[in-house]
């Protein structure tokens, strides 16, 4: 009997949502038309999603990166234990050897995604997640002690702080140059020939900063959550 109220609520919500979504959405899309038509000229970046994330709405991306920083600090604060016994599984040598073989390729893939984020699908967040996977694989297969030895907690927190500070410093350069925070083309940054690896002004640098920050942050989150008494 108690479950009838959630059902009524959900049916009301579903009928409302269908009523709202089923008619054709026919609003004008002037903003996205503008981005598609002059985004490459404004930013020098051919990947429009990256152009929106790191140029037009770079301040939002700074907020996103701050969310990951906040979550990492909150979780290390909530679970401050130093020992990990959850990963007590023993794997056969085949697994360990294959993981050791795969990890260099993962490093290359992560940095490729970060550096080519303004030319192809990918970017700082995706590449950062791939870099965090390395730490997760180390922790699962070899245990947390080996993972801490390979990529220590201090190095991770340093990398995360470095990424955040780099992001903010690049943003402040725009202010010093007499434009807005995180200004790209309006400040003195050369946009380059769009389509080249070194194009888009601040966008590749911001991608690199975000990638380092996200990778270290997610690795800290995972390594903190695996710890217990």
């Amino acid at each position: 009997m108690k479950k009838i109220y959630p059902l009524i609520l959900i049916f009301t919500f579903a009928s409302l949502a269908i009523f709202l979504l089923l008619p054709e959405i026919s609003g004008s899309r002037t903003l996205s038309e503008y981005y598609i038509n002059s985004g490459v000229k404004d930013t020098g970046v051919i990947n429009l999603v990256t152009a929106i994330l790191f140029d037009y709405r770079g301040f939002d991306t700074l907020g996103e990166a701050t969310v990951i920083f906040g979550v990492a600090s909150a979780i290390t604060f909530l679970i401050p234990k130093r020992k990990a016994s959850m990963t007590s599984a023993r794997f056969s040598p085949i697994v360990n050897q294959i993981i050791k073989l795969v990890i260099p390729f993962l490093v290359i893939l992560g940095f490729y995604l970060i550096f080519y984020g303004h030319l192809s699908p990918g970017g700082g967040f995706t590449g950062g997640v791939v870099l965090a996977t390395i730490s997760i694989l180390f922790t699962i297969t070899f245990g947390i002690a080996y993972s801490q030895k390979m990529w220590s907690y201090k190095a991770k927190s340093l990398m995360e702080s470095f990424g955040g500070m780099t992001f903010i410093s690049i943003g402040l350069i725009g202010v010093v140059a007499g434009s807005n925070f995180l200004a790209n083309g309006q400040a003195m940054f050369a946009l380059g020939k769009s389509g080249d690896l070194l194009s888009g002004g601040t966008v590749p640098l911001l991608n690199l900063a975000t990638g380092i920050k996200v990778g270290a942050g997610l690795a800290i989150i995972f390594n903190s959550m695996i710890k217990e008494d």
Partner: protein
Amino acid sequence: MRFAYLIVVILFCQGLYIILTKSNLIKMIMGFSIAESALIMLLVLIGYREGGTVPIIYRDFSTVVDPIPQALALTAIVIGASITAVMLAFTIKIHKKYGTIDLNEIKELRNQ
């Protein structure tokens, strides 16, 4: 094409139902994740255009899908992953304190 929106509504309501009715905290977190994936699907659907290509402009194009909802979907994924991590951390804390993650049992333990 319109039916895809129906799938979004069904998925979101499934997640909402799980959040409202289950008493196991892990199942509640799963409900949050299901509802979140429905929202990401909605963002992708809003940006879809008939016959559109990927929003990477390196040659002549006729139609491009809307890039703004894709950027917002990236934000939604990042925030969703962070929130899931925090919820799991709190679940670990609750299990350490009460020895259970069932909300009804926790309620009984608190009333004692």
